[in-house]
């Protein structure tokens, strides 16, 4: 009898809002960051093998896919940093009012996009 009782729907029906979105994105970006840090270490150690390796990586990173990957990593790091600051403030016990969580969540989302653009422009020597 006990096993017959169904489980009521949960994530399938629950409505998303800013804070839950930022929370799940925080998790996803942390996974992206771990993978990308590993890749960067791998890339750095490949440099030890000489010029030909450097050229290979360089041509990959200047291709369209490479540029896209760099942009994703830049956004992911920006998001993680801003979201972590939000968490630090929350750990101090501030910013739990619904309105403020909404505003700080939006700041994290839009701030990460702005930071990505800024990094891009800095990298292109526009700023």
């Amino acid at each position: 009898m006990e096993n017959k009782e169904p489980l009521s729907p949960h994530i399938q029906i629950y409505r998303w809002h800013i804070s839950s979105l930022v929370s799940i994105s925080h998790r996803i970006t942390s996974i992206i960051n771990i993978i990308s840090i590993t890749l960067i270490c791998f890339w750095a150690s490949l440099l030890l093998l000489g010029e030909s390796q450097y050229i290979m990586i360089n041509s990959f990173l200047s291709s369209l896919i490479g540029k896209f990957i760099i942009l994703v990593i830049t956004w992911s790091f920006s998001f993680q940093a801003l979201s972590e600051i939000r968490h630090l403030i929350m750990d101090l016990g501030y910013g739990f009012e619904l309105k403020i969580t909404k505003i700080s969540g939006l700041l994290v989302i839009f701030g990460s996009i702005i930071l990505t653009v800024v990094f891009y422009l800095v990298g292109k020597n526009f700023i």
Partner: protein
Amino acid sequence: MVQINLPKNSQVIKGKYFKDKTSSKNLRKVNIYRWDPSTGEKPRIDTYEVDMDNCPSKVLDILNKIKNEIDPTIAYRRSCAHGVCGSCAMNIGGKNGLACTTPHSEIDGDIDIYPLPHLKVKRDLIGDLDNLYKQYESIEPWLKSNSKSESKEIFQSKEDRAKLDGAYECIMCACCSTSCPSYWWNGDKYLGPAVLLQAYRWIIDSRDEERQKRLKKVADELKLYRCHTILNCTNACPKGLNPAKAIAEIKKMLATANV
């Protein structure tokens, strides 16, 4: 454990359609989760067309109207009908709340009504809250004072009393706990926002003498620190309380006090 998909016996199928018989022009479609333990069938979503011209303002009024006028087989908990007892907690339009205090005018489109998320369903909109009550019992939600004689009143200053504001008003409707993804995945160990808010309420009570013991008891990787400030709880609370902040305060106390 994170289990995104529902088990096979819990997957929801399309159910019956109850067409309007009043020939009213102001109709709304209400989709309600149904499950009957006496049949072996899967849970289903029944759709009702409800005449809104003759329906009071709250979601509970819709349910009462359906039960009285359209389909008497539907089962749900309700009692006080004005947000004090916490019986009619359910998932309305994708968000947990009390049916008796949620106006249906706030919901766009069809009104979807489900039981509280991630609970064993007893029938229709009635979820099994046994686990939550056991966890509530585990934090020993009563005053513990050993030194003072039981015949004498224990005084509390106005300032100390004010600390309990925002914690004592909780009606244990379970809207917050069942809205929390951490509680969905680890509900067997994580205490959840409702119980932690009550734990906080007793930790900060100036009359209680077992503050240290209470803190120690709750200081556990899974019991407390599964809160990742998703804030579904504060968003859902029909009494406007802030369980997420209470949990943060407990964490802060544990980080700063010698426990």
